[in-house]
């Protein structure tokens, strides 16, 4: 695989910079590098496939939050940002290039390996449109969702129905997969509305998980994967191939282990080697590989190399010395910057995507293997399981505290939050929980900042007292 950036490592101290500085720095990147950093490489450098562009490019097209965020200054991070931000366009380019585009909803990454094992097929997550209103600092998609009766009492994933209704955020999917059951209730409500509006959905039932009925759940789930496989065969006219599937699983396992490595490096002692938003982008690449698995692998590998080099060289950001576990992804990424500004670093996370962190087995039937991985899902089963995931992260990273960024209206947040808070407190660690404010609610956002600052102050004062 082409790794053009290898010869062009920026000799700069690791730090966080704003979109303005990236805009000017970008001019120093050699033209050949920009030219050769492309997605869908097998299409022989299609005119539109470049993606190494700075945040200012995406800001001009309406992603207004980018003007306020802080970005890591490495080339690998720029590549990651460019790759993630170009996903929307990539879906259209995929369609223009004759690919099938599959929408996967509600399972967060568990069915993707199966979908990608069919030729010329890519997938994406309409659920992830929940970031769009925050990136654009806009209520457009939420207002659209409100037309369907999904208002502020529903999780931010309601933006997905806006995407379907507006028809301007992704091409019409060739297939909509709706995973429902023991997962997010709000997304289930969103999917129901999508179905009612006329977009056909292939329903995939996620059973409840408990230790008593694990084998039953696994068998049931394997059956759901089989049904989905049949649907994909019907759609593509191509028979499921175990060897193609195994090829994809090899790559997916490689991606998952790269992400794991990045997470380990992020928690390393010494200076904080990377920003929390970049790491969130890395972790979320496990969902649908930003619609290009091969390029995604290259992007994350590059990122891992950069992280490794920094950790080995004991390089990182200064002044971010309080290790925090972030629980539930931040719908508004600026909250992560706030934490960093206050001297915190995200050393670990529980982003409700535990189902895409373990290796997919290759020594059993594909459907069983997928079922088994999926049964590790963060949102399945008891909240105590998720609380334990948080405690494991605390243990792994030797964190100083945990932050839970909930979502007002989300069905699982209110239940889980109190259980996680209790579990973390029992470990003797401070924990802060808040509901993320809607885009543009400056007052609420400043209140969150206030709480975060108080939280960080209390950790810092306790720490200095004990040290003293």
């Amino acid at each position: 695989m082409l790794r053009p950036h290898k010869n062009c490592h920026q000799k700069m101290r690791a730090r966080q910079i704003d979109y303005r500085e990236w805009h000017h720095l970008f001019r120093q990147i050699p033209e050949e590098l920009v030219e050769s950093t492309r997605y869908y490489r097998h299409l022989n450098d299609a005119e539109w496939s470049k993606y190494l562009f700075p945040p200012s490019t995406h800001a001009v097209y309406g992603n207004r939050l980018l003007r306020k965020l802080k970005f890591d200054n490495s080339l690998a991070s720029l590549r990651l940002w460019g790759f993630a931000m170009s996903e929307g366009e990539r879906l259209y380019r995929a369609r223009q290039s004759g690919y099938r585009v599959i929408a996967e909803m509600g399972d967060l990454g568990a069915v993707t390996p199966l979908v990608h094992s069919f030729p010329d097929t890519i997938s994406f997550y309409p659920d992830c449109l929940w970031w769009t209103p925050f990136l654009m600092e806009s209520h457009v998609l939420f207002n659209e969702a409100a037309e369907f009766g999904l208002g502020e009492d529903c999780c931010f994933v309601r933006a997905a129905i806006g995407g379907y209704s507006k028809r301007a955020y992704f091409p019409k999917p060739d297939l909509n997969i709706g995973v429902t059951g023991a997962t997010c209730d709000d997304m289930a409500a969103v999917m129901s509305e999508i179905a009612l509006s006329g977009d056909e959905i292939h329903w995939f039932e996620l059973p409840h998980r408990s230790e008593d009925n694990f084998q039953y759940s696994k068998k049931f789930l394997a059956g759901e994967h089989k049904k989905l496989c049949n649907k994909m065969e019907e759609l593509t006219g191509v028979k499921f191939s175990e060897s193609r599937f195994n090829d994809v699983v090899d790559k997916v396992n490689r991606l998952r282990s790269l992400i794991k490595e990045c997470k380990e490096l992020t928690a390393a002692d010494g200076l904080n080697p990377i920003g929390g938003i970049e790491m969130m982008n890395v972790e979320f690449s496990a969902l649908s590989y930003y619609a290009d698995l091969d390029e995604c692998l290259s992007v994350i590998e590059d990122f891992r190399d950069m992280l490794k080099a920094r950790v080995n060289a004991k390089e990182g950001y200064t002044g971010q010395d309080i290790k925090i576990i972030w629980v539930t992804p931040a719908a508004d990424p600026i909250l992560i910057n706030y934490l960093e500004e206050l001297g915190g670093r995200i050393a670990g996370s529980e982003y409700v995507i535990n189902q895409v962190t373990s290796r997919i087995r290759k020594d059993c039937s594909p459907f069983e293997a997928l079922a088994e991985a999926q049964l590790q899902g963060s949102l399945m089963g008891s909240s105590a399981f998720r609380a334990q995931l948080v405690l494991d992260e605390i243990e792994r990273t030797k964190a100083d505290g945990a932050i839970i960024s909930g979502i007002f209206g989300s069905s699982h947040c209110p239940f889980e939050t109190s259980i996680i808070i209790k579990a973390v407190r029992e470990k003797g660690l401070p924990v802060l929980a808040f509901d993320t404010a809607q885009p543009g609610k400056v007052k609420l956002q400043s209140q969150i900042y206030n709480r975060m600052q108080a939280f960080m102050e209390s950790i810092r004062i306790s720490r200095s007292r004990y040290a003293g």
Partner: protein
Amino acid sequence: MPGEMNPRERWGLLLIDEIPDRPPVYPLVTSHAAAAYGCDLIQYCTDGEVLAEAQLYAQRLYQHEGLSVFTDVGIIAEAMGSKYHLREYEVPILDSPIIQNPEAVEDLRIPDPVQDGRLPVYLEAIDKLYTAAGDILPVFAFIPCPFTTSAGLRGTEEFLISTALAPENAHKLLEISLQAAVKFCDECILAGALPVLVDPLASGSVISRSTFSQFASPYTRRLIEHLHRYDLDIMLHICGDTSGMLDLIPATGADLFSMDKADISSAIAICGDKIRLAGNLPPHGLLEVSRIDMAQKAEEAVEKGITNPKGFVLSTGCEAPIKASPEKLHKIIEIGRKSHYDFKW
């Protein structure tokens, strides 16, 4: 209305070679916004907040699909030292160019967009517009191309003569004008606007094909190359008659050509496979006194324009006149809004 695309979404699809529900409707409502808003042009050209307020007011009034930050084509030349005469009810005009003799080119310096001339007016207006409505409406900053700026630095006649008699000097001037444009474009981008390049002096009504190819197009192309490096989709607007140079337009690298006096069907035939087109309702037809049937013109433009394989934007051939009739503007916008592509999702 639920499901209806907004301008940002519509333009967004167009820029990635997708067909939106209908072409964006974007007449060049620039100085006319001042008249609609009720301020004079001196205020409009010198106060970014007024410019932004006027643009927002006009957009709410007409519902066209983009915000335009444009005062006059002398904006960069003025920041480099040329004197422009600001007038209450007409656009600024060149009073005295900074370069009075050919050697003076050496003394020119690239202006600082944050403090020189009226460049900060643009930046303030862009920032305000982007902050107020950038999620729904694209903000376009109209930047004069190096050829037009050079004329503002040297005086139009002197500059055109120099292209024939002292081409080296003309190139020097063009080079520094290019650097000034690059720097200004960067600041406009950072403030939130997509640059639109305007080159009224490069019109076929003013210069020959060869002057265009030797002096205008290369610098415009380099400016566009700089912007393309950032993956920005660039609209080029040339006033006047460009029918004789349509084949030369794609060489500038522009992604969208905003055309004035040329036939849309001919443009599609000549360069429609390479470039998106915007145009080209006759601006003077928007005057109250005009007898041109603008509704018919708009219908014809849409009918022809939507056949362009690279996409089409219904626009005016040049700026809507300051004293454009609001009723006529409403009418052409209404016709544009009723048009539709064969959009299937």
